[in-house]
């Protein structure tokens, strides 16, 4: 009996409980397989009894029951005859059928109790075909144990949660119900057949008011609650429960303090108490009905019941109701909360969970705003809550601490948290004067008021000395919650948070109010109390349980304040991470804690990044790169303008890490060494480096606040600086952050592994596209050299290599780089063309025709599409043709009512409908000048608001974590990197490479998947494989940005339009929406179709104002030629001394002037030297 070796569930089935078989008798099946191989072990025994089976096949279930008496006799013998043979499920089922018919016999009863029912319990579910027999047993049998089993099995049939209506309960899987088909020739009994009958029976029993029957009544009621998912049953259950309570709850029932549940009292009151218990317990399992006064009334009555479990359930119900309607609950509780009331009695109730529920109830009511006008009620509940801080049970005390700290199960509110910290550090517990000690001075002296903080600290410190792991875990969790409240208090700047003040002064103040005084002599400050607690917390890191350690580290992270040095915490984490016992899930949990900590105190961005770096270097194989990236991103955003550089540095540190040294165990606690001693870790480290490189490329522009669409430097300046050294010098002096990122990426592009190099090249392209000059040209030069393999030779003398053979082809990036270079080439050549065109127009003094503008706009759109293939750019602001194209593009857009975000593929534009719509599509002015550039960029790139929290998997994880949710099952295979949900780099590379090829093919086409006017389009661009799907990026929320970025785009558009002073006239022109739209060729419109060079300055750029208006506007100055001047080029103009001219603008010592009459050369306007003209 005592020997358990080789015993399995199978043995149980095969055994006769009265005499244990030899251990090895049936140990043919290994125990490991026993619950996984359901039917096979039983096949033999089933065939052994085929004669009986065949007989029963012909009978229906009812017939079996009626004929069962004779069959039962045979069946009863089965186990005795075949002691060593396993008993099949079929046999057991049949035994029940048969024994049910003879349940009046002692032998049958014994058989059921000792043999059939216990063995049946081993099967993990109960099939409905047993129900008729069970019901019959319930009706006919008197044996209490059999009846108890009957209720147990009936309750297990009722819930409809399993795949086939089964509720698995461990043990051996129940064979398919078909195995029982041989009993019932009709085709088996289904749930639908038996459940109504079971419910009927149980309902009848639950309403049976016979006092002798009340134990069964309670069990019937309990079993019924398992069917409460069905609305009809729920209704019926409410009726039964309230029916019982109507009868038993109103009777005054004096509680006998201290003897709850103990024997005693008269029979009637005990039965009443039992029924009260049964009804309240059932009610607890039913959905709450907030707002129903009867429901509340009954629940509140339960608080005074004599059964302790009933009291607990009542309190639990009431505490939940109190969170919804605290006022009603407080009113209903009324006198119960007063000294001597039932709630005070709960303090002495033995049931721990009842006191926990009391703490929650007190918390809900004492913090209710709706009770602000009843401070007396609030004070009563607050006092009760504070008394629970003295509770001997850690569970209750900790719950009370959490309540004081303002933690709530729902979303935490910062204000409530902050207030919680204030309460904890300031308020005192005044022990209520117990009636018995009222007159004794000594006792009242001993119960002097105590500061909550001191009380709590003492309690926590003693808990941390406990040997129980759950207690340590819980205590660390409480400290963590304390840290959260403290952080909230600091972030809100709650009044008087000074932690250096003597806390005793608060208690003294309070005591003085009471007319007493107390002086402890020593000075206790919140800071000193906390320091002493944290000392104890730190020692707990020595606990052998990794989960306790994790909780302690979380607590330390939360208690870390921005001002304190974090070196100790950092080294502690570093040494902890060296322990292989840490699972990936736990490590990621701590990363998420860093997130949460950052959200509470953005000032800690840099500190937290430093800590996150430890994870990246110590356990690269275990952490989720997505979560780490999200942390980088949130910290980057939160670091503010000043911290951006530092935040980006923290990311780049990952790139500077030396390659892992296999087998090296030196410097185990050094945080600057990479621990990737096995191939898996090395691979993970590489993935992390890839992620960092990608992150850098994607976010460097944000960190450096450098955007092409805001670059002040005209392209010409940069082109003149082709000397590489000068360029680099200029670049780094102008924007060290960007230059730094650029340098690191360049380094990665030739010394990393091939995978890293590819990402680095892509990151550089992204930066080239997004940055203005001279960065773009710098990157272009670098990529160009890289493509030709020239760079490697330049750097070869640096001897920096990870030891990998980089191949004969140099970088091996040629095929990847060519489309990237092509984009940049296209952009530069298009810019050159534009400059040429503009010069020609200026020289020829020609106005831009609509066709020319159209061509220009098409080029703009085409390049925009092309660029979008590589990375996200804000479409409304990005100018692939350079800043000089802005005005021309704007003119064309305005004229044809093309919205900047949708471009040419807007159906309204394509079909010409947009031409008909004027004011309706006009963007409303949104005060573009008031918008901070950085804000616009952040907004446009999806940083602000919900842009940061888009639907990337990591963000879900963070959100879930922050919300305190997450009960989903843990992943056991956390060591298996490939099983992690995040997409592997290999997959992404496959896609990336494919799409690069596509991008190459699609160069000339403006349509395709890159079109940003479809939500999914940007996702398919190369960078969004990283940004949109896997890696959080400042630019990653393209779809949502596109969907929601209209205001910014509008502002961008209007900002571009603003310098053109004539926009108002354009608006005026188009304003009456009901007006017949003028024909496209109408002379009025034609005036606007051609115009003078808008780039020629403020005066001439009013493209949409009429020439006459311009001349009368006073912007144009008149002048007189002082000397004769002979034109030296096409753009120059001949002058005769004394000739009158209109000066349009000045450029580089030249006036662009217009004559009133054309000269002999036929030219009317052109450039003349400033000195040749006197301005009048």
């Amino acid at each position, binding site marked *: *009996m005592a*020997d*358990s070796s080789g*015993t*399995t*569930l199978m*043995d*149980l089935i095969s*055994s006769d409980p009265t005499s*244990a078989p030899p251990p090895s008798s049936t140990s043919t099946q290994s*125990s490991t397989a*026993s619950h996984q191989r359901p039917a096979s072990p039983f096949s033999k025994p089933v065939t052994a009894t085929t004669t009986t089976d065949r007989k029963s096949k012909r009978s229906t279930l009812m017939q079996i029951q009626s004929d069962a008496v004779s069959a039962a006799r045979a069946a009863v013998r089965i186990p005795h005859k075949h002691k060593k043979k396993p008993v099949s499920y079929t046999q057991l089922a049949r035994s029940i059928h048969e024994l049910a018919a003879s349940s009046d016999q002692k032998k049958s009863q014994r058989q059921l109790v000792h043999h059939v*029912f*216990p*063995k*049946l*319990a*081993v099967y993990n579910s109960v099939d409905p075909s047993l129900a008729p027999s069970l019901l019959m047993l319930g009706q006919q049998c008197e044996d*209490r*144990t059999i009846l*108890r*089993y009957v*209720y*147990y099995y009936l309750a297990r049939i009722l819930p409809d949660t399993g*795949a086939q209506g089964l509720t698995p*309960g*461990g*043990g051996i899987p129940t064979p398919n119900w078909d195995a029982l088909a041989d009993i019932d020739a009709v085709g088996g009994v289904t749930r639908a057949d038996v459940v109504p009958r079971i419910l009927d029976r149980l309902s009848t029993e639950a309403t049976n008011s016979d006092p002798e029957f009340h*134990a069964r009544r*309670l069990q019937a009621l309990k079993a019924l*609650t*398992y069917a409460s998912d069905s609305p009809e049953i729920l209704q019926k259950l409410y009726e039964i429960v309230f029916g019982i309570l109507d009868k038993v709850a109103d009777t005054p029932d004096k509680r006998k303090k201290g003897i709850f*549940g103990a024997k005693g009292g008269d029979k009637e009151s*005990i*039965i009443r108490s039992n029924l009260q218990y049964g009804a309240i*317990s059932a009610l607890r*399992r039913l959905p709450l009905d907030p707002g129903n006064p009867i429901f509340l009334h009954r629940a509140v009555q339960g608080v005074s019941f004599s059964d302790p*479990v009933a009291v607990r359930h009542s309190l*639990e119900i009431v505490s939940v109701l109190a969170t919804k309607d605290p006022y009603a609950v407080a009113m209903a509780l009324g006198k119960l909360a007063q000294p001597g009331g039932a709630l005070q009695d709960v303090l002495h109730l033995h049931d721990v*969970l009842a006191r*926990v529920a009391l703490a929650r109830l007190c918390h809900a009511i004492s913090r209710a705003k709706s009770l602000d006008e009843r401070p007396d009620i609030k004070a009563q509940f607050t006092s009760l809550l504070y008394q629970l801080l003295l509770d001997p049970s850690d*569970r209750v005390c900790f719950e009370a601490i959490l309540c004081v700290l303002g933690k709530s*199960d729902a979303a935490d509110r910062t204000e409530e948290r902050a207030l919680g910290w204030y309460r904890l550090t300031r308020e005192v517990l005044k022990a209520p004067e117990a009636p018995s000690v009222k007159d004794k001075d000594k006792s009242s002296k001993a119960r002097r008021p105590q500061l909550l903080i001191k009380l709590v600290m003492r309690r926590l410190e003693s808990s941390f000395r406990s040997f*129980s792991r*759950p207690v340590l*875990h*819980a205590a660390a*969790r409480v400290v963590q919650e304390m840290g959260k409240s403290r952080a909230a208090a600091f972030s809100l700047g709650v009044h008087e948070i000074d932690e250096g003040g003597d806390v005793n002064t608060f208690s003294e103040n309070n005591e003085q109010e009471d007319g007493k005084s107390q002086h402890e002599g020593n000075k206790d400050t919140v800071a000193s109390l906390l320091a002493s607690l944290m000392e104890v917390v730190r020692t707990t890191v020595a606990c052998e*349980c990794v*989960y*306790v350690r*994790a909780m302690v580290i979380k607590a330390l992270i939360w208690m870390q304040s921005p001002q304190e040095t974090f070196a100790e915490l950092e080294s502690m984490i570093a040494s902890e991470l060296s322990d292989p016992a840490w699972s990936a899930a736990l490590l990621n949990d701590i990363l998420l804690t860093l997130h949460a900590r950052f959200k509470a105190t953005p000032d800690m961005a840099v500190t937290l990044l430093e800590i996150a770096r430890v994870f990246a270097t110590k356990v690269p194989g275990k952490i989720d790169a997505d979560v780490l990236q999200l942390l980088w991103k949130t910290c980057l955003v939160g670091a503010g303008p000043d911290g951006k550089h530092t935040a980006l540095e923290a990311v780049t540190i990952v790139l500077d890490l030396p390659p892992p040294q296999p087998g090296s165990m030196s410097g185990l606690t050094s945080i600057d060494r990479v621990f990737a001693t096995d191939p898996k870790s090395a691979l993970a480290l590489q993935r992390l480096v890839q992620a960092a490189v990608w992150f850098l490329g994607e976010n460097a522009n944000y960190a450096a606040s450098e955007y092409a669409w805001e670059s002040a430097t005209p392209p010409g300046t940069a082109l003149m600086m082709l000397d590489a050294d000068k360029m680099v010098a200029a670049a780094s002096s102008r924007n060290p952050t960007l230059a730094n990122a650029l340098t690191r990426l360049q380094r990665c592009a030739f010394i990393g592994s091939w995978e890293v190099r590819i990402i680095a090249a892509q990151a550089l392209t992204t930066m080239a596209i997004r940055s203005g000059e001279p960065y773009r040209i710098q990157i272009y030069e670098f990529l160009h050299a890289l493509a030709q393999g020239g760079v490697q030779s330049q750097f070869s003398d640096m001897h920096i290599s990870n030891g990998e053979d980089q191949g004969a082809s140099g970088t091996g990036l040629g095929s990847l780089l060519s489309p990237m270079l092509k984009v940049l080439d296209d952009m530069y050549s298009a810019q050159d063309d534009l400059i040429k065109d503009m010069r020609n127009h200026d020289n020829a003094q020609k106005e831009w025709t609509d066709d020319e503008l159209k061509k220009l706009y098409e080029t703009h759109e085409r390049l925009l599409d092309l660029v979008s293939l590589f990375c996200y750019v804000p479409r409304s602001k990005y100018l692939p043709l350079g800043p000089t194209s802005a005005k021309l593009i704007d003119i064309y857009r305005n004229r044809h009512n093309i919205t900047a975000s949708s471009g040419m593929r807007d159906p309204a534009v394509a079909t010409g409908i947009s031409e008909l719509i004027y004011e309706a599509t006009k963007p409303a002015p949104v005060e573009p000048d008031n918008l901070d550039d950085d804000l616009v960029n952040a907004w446009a790139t999806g940083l602000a608001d919900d842009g940061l929290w888009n639907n990337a998997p990591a963000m879900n994880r963070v959100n*879930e974590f922050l919300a*305190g949710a*997450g*009960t*989903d*099952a*843990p992943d*056991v295979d956390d060591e298996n990197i490939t099983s992690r949900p995040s997409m592997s780099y290999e997959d992404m590379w496959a896609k990336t490479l494919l799409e690069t090829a596509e991008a190459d093919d699609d160069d000339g086409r403006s349509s395709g998947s890159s079109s940003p006017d479809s939500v999914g389009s940007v996702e398919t661009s190369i960078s969004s494989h990283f940004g949109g799907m896997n890696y959080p990026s400042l630019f990653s929320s393209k779809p949502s940005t596109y969907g929601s970025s209209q205001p910014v785009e509008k502002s961008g558009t209007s900002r571009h339009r603003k310098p053109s002073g004539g926009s108002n006239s354009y608006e005026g022109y188009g304003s009456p929406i009901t007006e017949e739209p003028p024909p496209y060729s109408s002379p009025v419109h034609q005036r606007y179709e051609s115009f003078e060079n808008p780039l020629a300055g403020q005066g001439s750029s009013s493209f949409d104002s009429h020439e006459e208006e311009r001349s009368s506007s006073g912007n144009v100055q008149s002048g007189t030629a002082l000397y004769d001047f002979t034109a030296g080029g096409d753009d120059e103009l001949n002058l005769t001394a004394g000739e009158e001219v209109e000066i349009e603008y000045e450029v580089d010592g030249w006036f662009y002037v217009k004559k009133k009459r054309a000269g002999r050369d036929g030219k009317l306007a052109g450039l003349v030297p400033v000195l040749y003209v006197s301005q009048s």
Partner: protein
Amino acid sequence: MLLAVLITNSEGNILVERFNGVPGEERLHWRSFLVKLGADNLKGVKNEELCVASHKSVYIVYTVLGHVNIYLVGKDEYDELALSEAIFVVTSAIKDVCGKPPTERLFLDKYGRICLCLDEIVWKGLLENTDKDRIKRLVRLKPPTEF
């Protein structure tokens, strides 16, 4: 909510499981997670010495009793300390039924009665009865308080 009560033998075979409010597709994960937890941490642990773990906002308390491992999973008010209370009730009930810390054989012999006890201790995901005598009475279909 007391999400799960799981009892396994020392090899990790599940003898009893009671899930409450856990979706069917997650149960398999929980089973393997708990079994792995036990395999990693329960070696050399004394009878009824409590171990703790957590996953997101879910707490796990587990222990060894004789030759069986007992795991309790809970969330919200069923935190690690409430689970410790609950696991104490479960272990006492099993010890009561078996008369001592059970071997797997003994546990299986008393399987039916253990199931009935468990039914009285945990009812639809909430801890119900904690008093030993009361559980004993209820298992015999006697009223919770006798007269």
